C-alpha cells in the first residue's frame, strides 16, 4: 500500500469516527458561528465569541462550534462544511455574509440560519442586530463636551448604513453638547486592520482632533489616543485596560442576550425552519443587548465623570450638566421611553430634511441610511445629493 493510500484510509477512518461521535450527541442542539475576524480581536468577533460562550454556559442542551477569520464573500464553503458537521443553527456574524447566507438558507432548508447586521430574510433565515446608535449619541454628547479644539476624530470602517447611522448619531450628540464642534471622519475600508487604524488616527490628530473614537475591531484606536493622552471610547468590548486614564466611556455589546433568547426559542419549537421570514431582532438599550460604558457596569470613568459634571449644555432653554443629560437619556432609553437620537426634524449635512418634525426613523430607514448628519466632515461614499 502506497503512502497516499494509507493516508486516505486514515482520513476516512477519522471521518467515520467523527461522524459517529456527532451522531451520539443528537440530543443536543448544535449551533455554529462564523466570524469575520479573529476571536481575539477584542472587538466585534471577540464579542460574538463571548456571547457564544455565555450561551453555551447558560443552556445545558447547547453545543457550539465556530470558524473564525472567514473573509466576506467566502462564507459559502464554510457553511457547507458546517452543514456536513451537523449544525442545526448557523449564525453568520457579518454584514458581508448576507447573500451567501441567503443562498445557503435556500440550499439547506432544514437548517436554521440567523444573519447578523443585514436585512434579507427567508423562511429559515432570521436577522439580528444589537445596535449602538443610541449609545453613540450618548458618547457623542460626552465627546462634544470634552473637545476643546471642537474637532472629534472618528475612524470609520466601511461607509455602509450601519456606520453612517452610528457616525450620524455620534455627530448629533457632539453637536448637541457643543454646537460649534464637528466630527472628522477617515475611512479605512476594513473591519480589522491595526496599521490602517493607527495611521488614520494619526491623520485625524494631525488635523486637530483632540477626542478620538474608532469603529475598527481592535483596541488600536484606544491605544493611539492613550499615546497622545486624549479622551477616547471603548468599542464593542471593555477596552479600559488598554488605556486606563484615557477611556471616557464607550459602546459595549451583549450578544449573549440575543443568542440565548433565539436558541431557547429554537429549542422549544417556537422558531422553526418555516417561520423566520419576519423574525428580526433589533435590540437596543431597552433589551440590555447594548450598554454605554468604559467597562461592564461602568458608564463613566471617575476622572471624566467629574469633567462631564462640570461641563454644561443647553436643553430646552435650560443649562444642565452633560453628565446629568447623558445619565437621564441613558435611563430613559433603557426603559424604552420616548427619546430617540433621530427624532425629527433631522436634516442631513447638505441641508435636506431626512426626518420630519416629531417623527422617528423606522428600522428599515435606519438599515438603509445613506445620508449623514450635520457636523460630519470628510469624504463619505454613496451620499445622496437630494
Amino acid at each position, binding site marked *: 500500500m502506497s503512502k497516499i493510500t494509507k493516508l486516505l484510509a486514515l482520513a476516512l477512518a477519522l471521518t467515520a469516527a467523527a461522524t459517529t461521535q456527532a451522531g451520539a450527541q443528537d440530543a443536543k442542539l448544535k449551533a455554529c458561528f462564523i466570524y469575520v475576524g479573529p476571536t*481575539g*480581536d477584542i472587538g466585534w468577533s471577540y464579542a460574538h465569541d463571548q456571547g457564544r460562550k455565555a450561551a453555551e454556559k447558560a443552556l445545558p442542551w447547547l453545543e457550539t462550534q465556530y470558524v473564525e477569520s472567514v473573509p466576506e464573500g467566502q462564507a459559502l464553503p464554510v457553511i457547507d462544511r458546517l452543514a456536513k458537521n451537523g449544525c442545526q443553527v448557523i449564525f453568520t456574524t457579518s454584514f458581508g455574509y448576507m447573500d451567501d447566507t441567503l443562498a445557503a438558507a435556500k440550499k439547506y432548508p432544514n437548517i436554521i440560519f440567523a444573519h447578523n447586521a443585514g436585512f434579507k430574510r427567508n423562511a429559515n433565515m432570521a436577522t439580528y442586530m444589537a445596535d449602538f446608535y443610541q449609545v453613540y449619541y450618548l458618547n457623542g454628547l460626552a465627546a462634544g463636551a470634552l473637545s476643546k479644539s471642537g474637532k472629534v476624530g472618528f475612524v470609520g470602517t466601511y461607509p455602509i448604513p450601519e456606520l453612517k447611522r452610528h457616525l450620524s448619531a455620534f455627530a448629533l450628540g457632539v453637536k448637541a453638547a457643543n454646537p460649534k464642534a464637528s466630527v472628522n471622519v477617515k475611512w479605512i475600508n476594513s473591519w480589522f486592520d491595526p496599521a490602517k487604524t493607527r495611521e488614520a488616527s494619526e491623520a485625524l490628530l*494631525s488635523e486637530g482632533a483632540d477626542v478620538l473614537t474608532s469603529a475598527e475591531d481592535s483596541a*488600536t484606536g484606544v491605544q493611539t489616543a492613550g499615546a497622545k493622552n486624549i479622551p477616547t471610547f471603548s468599542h464593542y468590548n471593555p477596552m479600559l485596560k488598554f488605556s486606563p486614564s484615557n477611556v471616557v466611556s464607550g459602546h459595549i455589546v451583549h450578544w449573549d442576550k440575543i443568542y440565548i433568547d433565539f436558541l431557547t426559542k429554537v429549542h422549544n419549537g417556537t422558531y422553526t425552519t418555516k417561520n423566520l421570514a419576519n423574525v428580526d431582532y433589533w435590540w437596543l438599550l431597552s433589551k440590555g443587548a447594548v450598554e454605554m460604558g468604559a467597562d461592564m457596569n461602568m458608564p463613566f470613568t471617575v476622572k471624566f465623570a467629574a469633567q462631564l459634571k462640570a461641563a454644561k449644555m443647553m436643553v430646552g432653554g435650560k443649562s444642565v450638566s452633560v453628565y446629568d443629560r447623558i445619565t437621564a437619556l441613558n435611563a430613559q432609553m433603557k426603559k424604552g421611553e420616548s427619546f430617540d437620537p433621530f427624532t425629527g426634524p433631522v436634516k442631513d449635512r447638505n441641508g435636506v430634511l431626512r426626518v420630519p418634525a416629531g417623527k422617528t426613523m423606522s428600522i428599515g430607514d435606519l438599515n438603509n441610511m445613506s445620508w449623514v448628519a450635520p457636523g460630519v466632515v*470628510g469624504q463619505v461614499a454613496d451620499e445622496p445629493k437630494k
Partner: protein
Amino acid sequence: MDELLNALLRALAFGTPLLLASLGAVINERAGVVNLGVEGMMALGALAGFAVAYGDGSPGSGSIALGIVAAMAAGGLAALLHAFITITLRANQFVSGLSLTLLGLGVAGLLGKKYEGFPLFGQPNQWPFTIGAIVLALLLAFWLTSTRAGLTLRSVGENPAAADVLGLNVNLIRYGAVAFGGALAGLAGAYLSLVYRPSWTDGMTAGLGWIAVALVIFVGWNPLRAIFGSVFFGLLYYLQFRLQGKTFIPTEFFAAMPYLLVIVVLAFAGLRGQQGAAPEALGRPYTRGER
C-alpha cells in the same frame, strides 16, 4: 511645516518595520534565495516578542530586550526551515516561501490565543528601532560593496558555480543569508507588537510583509535606497488617510501605489532588456555540476 514634519514622522514610524524586513530580504536575495515568507516570519516574531516581553502580565515578569532576541530567533528559525526546503532539498523557493507565510500566520494565530486582549505597558521607545534600522542599512550597504565577505555573498547570488569553484561553501552562505533575513523579519514583527501597537492580535501584520517584499524590488536590492523606499512607502500609507477627501485623486490610489511602482520598475528594467538589478541566480537552487 508642522504638517510636513508630522508626515515625515509617520513615514518613519510606519517605514521602520518595512526597512528592517526589506533589509533582511535584500541580503537573502543577494545570496540568490527568494523568501516570500516575510509576512509569516513577521507574525512569528511579533508573537514571540510580545510573549517574552509580556511574561505573565505582572510587572517585571517579562523583558523587552529578551523579547527582541526571541523575535529575531523565531524569525530566524522559521527562515531556516525555508532554507532547508529550498537549499538542501532544492524545492521551489516561491512555493516554499508562500507556504511559510501561511504556516507562520497560522502557527502564530494558534499559539498566540492566550496573549490576545492584553496591552503591553512600559513599551520601548520607537527611535532606537528607527535609527538602528537606518544605521544597519548604511552598514549593510558598505558591507555588500566594500568588504570581501560582502563580495562573497554577492558572488553566491550572481554565479554560484564560480563561487563554488573558488572553494566557497555556497549552501552554507545561503543558509546564513536566509537566517539573517528571517531574523530581521522577526525584528520587524517585534517592532509591531512592542512599539507600533503594543499588544498581540492574530493577523496584526495585515500585509506589511508583502509591502516589504515589494520594496526589495522597488529599491533594486540596494540597502541605501531601501531607506528612502521605506520612508516613501510609509509616507504613501499615511497620506492615503491624511489626504482622504482632500484631493481629486482617490486615496485608494496611494494605497495601491507601492505595488504599481514595483510593476513600473520591473517594466522599465524589462524594456532595457535586463532583469533589473536582480541577482543573476535569484530563485534558482544550486546544484553542483549543473549549468
